[in-house]
């Protein structure tokens, strides 16, 4: 069969006509931020502490869900508009304002272009001045504990745990070794020290990632110190 020149033109014409946009723009405004307490970042477990963004006025009333990163940061790609930001009940190692019992407060967010919004929360405890060092296949952590909530909502320390892992994800579910100290065994809130032995790692690597986690009695999520890479 012979292909004629005007056949090609016709084909191209059809192809270009089919190129019309038929999709909505993807959401492009990025809302980012972190969990903070008086400017100090709150570290949590990866993928465990959720947040919800509601955009009222669109019929169905379902949230856009996301979770905080290890260092307490979050991000969400959104359309421009008015949103309400909240954290569901009993999530996170911190208190969240409640309007009345069981009714969670929300933060109104107006999105027009990308922006940063830090979320201020009140943690039960803070892990301060964490110094994590390694020597002779032992990781040592020295840190101070600070009780932040001391009123009727105060809770005891369940336990304090030093976790180490091969990768930068360090938590109860992601670790190669951990040492747990029960809250009752902690006598002083300052200069708490925990050791953990580094097991044999295959393939060998001369560094591990470590951080200290604090479990508050009766609270599901743990609060952590920042992740540190220690070489030994």
């Amino acid at each position, binding site marked *: 069969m012979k292909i004629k020149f005007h056949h090609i033109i016709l084909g191209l014409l059809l192809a270009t006509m089919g190129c019309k946009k038929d999709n909505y723009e993807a959401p492009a405004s990025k809302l980012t931020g972190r969990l903070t307490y008086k400017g100090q970042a709150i570290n949590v477990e990866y993928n465990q502490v959720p947040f919800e963004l509601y955009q009222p006025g669109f019929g169905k*009333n379902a949230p856009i869900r996301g979770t905080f990163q290890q260092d307490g940061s979050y991000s969400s790609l959104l359309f421009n508009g008015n949103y309400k930001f909240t954290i*569901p009940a009993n999530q996170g190692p911190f208190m969240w304002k409640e309007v009345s019992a069981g009714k969670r407060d929300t933060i109104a967010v107006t999105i027009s272009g990308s922006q940063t919004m830090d979320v201020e929360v009140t943690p039960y405890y803070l892990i301060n001045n964490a110094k994590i060092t390694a020597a002779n296949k032992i990781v040592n952590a020295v840190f101070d504990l600070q009780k932040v909530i001391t009123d009727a909502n105060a809770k005891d320390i369940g336990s304090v745990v030093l976790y180490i892992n091969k990768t930068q994800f360090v938590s109860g579910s992601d670790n190669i070794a951990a040492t747990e100290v029960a809250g009752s065994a902690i006598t002083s809130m300052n200069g708490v020290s925990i050791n953990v032995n580094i097991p044999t790692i295959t393939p060998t690597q001369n560094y591990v990632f470590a951080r200290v986690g604090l479990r508050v009695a009766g609270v599901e999520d743990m609060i952590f110190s920042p992740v540190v890479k220690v070489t030994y």
Partner: protein
Amino acid sequence: MKKISIITMLAISVVAGSCRKDSSFLDVPPKQVLPTDLAFSDPALVLSILGDLYDRQRDFSSLDGYPSREYPQSPNGDREPGWRTFADFSEAFPSENGSSFLVQRTGWGYGEWAIWDYGYIRDLNLFIQRATAATKLTEGDKARFIAEARFLRANYYFEMVKRMGGVPLITDPLAYDYSGNVTPLQRPRAKESEVYDFIISEAEAIKSILPADVNQKSRATKAAALAMESRAALYAGSIAKYGATTPQVSLPGNEVGIPSTQANAYYTKALSASQEIINGSAGSYQLYKVLPDLSDNFAAIFLDKSSVNQEAIFVEDFKANGGKVHGFTTNDQPFSISDEGLDAGRLNPSLNLVEAFEKLDNTYAPIATKDGAGNPIYYANQLDAFAGRDARLAGTVLLPNGLFKGKRTEVYAGYQLGDGTVISSGDATITQDIPGLGKTQVVGKDGPVNGLEFRTQTGFYVRKYLDPTVGSGRRGRGSDVNFIRYRYAEVLLNAAEAAFELGQTGTALGYINQVRSRAGLTTPLALLTFDRIVHERRVELAFEGHTLYDMKRWRLATKVWDGNQMSVADLVSNIGSATKHNTQPFGLWPYKYYNPGNANNGKWIFKEVKPSAVTGANKFQAGNYYSQIGDDILSANPKIVKQPNQ
């Protein structure tokens, strides 16, 4: 002339023929759809409608699987395969690479296990309404049909309340009046206790209508209603009692959570319902004690469909060559004994479960692999390592070198030489050089090799439900072993637990020791603890769909599945403790010891192994106690309150 009259007559008859009224011409009774009054005029037709409703019951573990993991049905309608509904919670390892997510994930989504099939509830309500209105049925038939539908409805509400907590209690077929106003159809969630009360009161109302017939197993009977009541009341009692330890798992309106003051009332109901079955007023139910070998006897409870089996109370029945079969045996048969080539070996019980079966002197011990000095223990026969244990172990789990269909499984992970060198390979067909033996097969035909699917990767195969009938492992024929939903041993354990919680320890011991002595544990327990009850249910009812609900109602789930990785030291310690964490399935791999001249040459040693696919650790969050109610449901009905902790 004659011609004209014929034509005229023809025309008249055509015209007259078309003069029928539209209604008589167009209203033709359908020949392929039965109208309601006709369908409810004949007991056989009603039974066929009821058959569909029976078939739509939902169990946690199901031999033939169910439409999908999500509710109400996944968009592409794919089925959750039956074997996989037994595989979670570290009680088993999935030896199918496509299902490795079960052991790689670090927890469950909040939507996991959710069901919300109000279409089914509506069909049940419609059935009850229509059967009540039926005029041509005998009173006896009618009462029984209605009672059966009420049983199915209560049992489905039970299944919902276990997963979702309090749900809207709809007991009449809702009708929409097309007014544009749907508010009358939007019902709020009932309290969790109200749903349990509904189940208990329905069971009480229908128990005397249903037949007390021990041979009626696939249709509702008096004993089925009482067994449901016994279990439901027990669940409600333990949620009331142990829910107090997790105050955050509750809602202000009690849609989730039962006040602890109601615990004793529920336990009392659970005990009296169980005792009604035990004392024989619902039929002569008893523990299955037929075969001399106690392990074979235990396995036969699930295989024996004859009238000899007076243990099964209510079952999902299957029939080979009759259209309702399942692929459980096909999917889980030992690889070398498979009827279907490569289709085998998916469900591998874990060492965690195996070592939970206690020794015959009522003590707990891990399977001995090393002596006090840390040297391996050598066994002449692989089965010797498991000797002297609860007979239910070999009845539930097909152990290495175990017998199935007259053949023994071949399970070993390699050769270990005198100097400690291990020689292994990736498949039984790949031979290796053993010094002095030459090219030799070094792993068993039935595994274990890490990542080699359809063969065991823990060293164990499942035996419960595994059908020894010829051809049961073929895909075409399938197996017709039935799934026991309620059985007498569970009723005894329900009674024991309820009595224990009520402080009647003597009564409780009497019931629990009956179940134990059937398993060969003939030294009766003298002391009963909560941990013993947790343990007994785990080993007696393994792979029967109880694990999740038991752990939830005792509020143990967050402790047992705490998300922490497990080590071998964790695995072998604290066996029998209710709070022992169980986050990753382990295996026990046999190795052949090869050291010519040594007394132990040719014997077996065992090693605890975490299969390489196991990377995640089960983490049960407080938000997992009650499955998420979907956003579509919450949007459609603003009266529904969200679950706690989500």
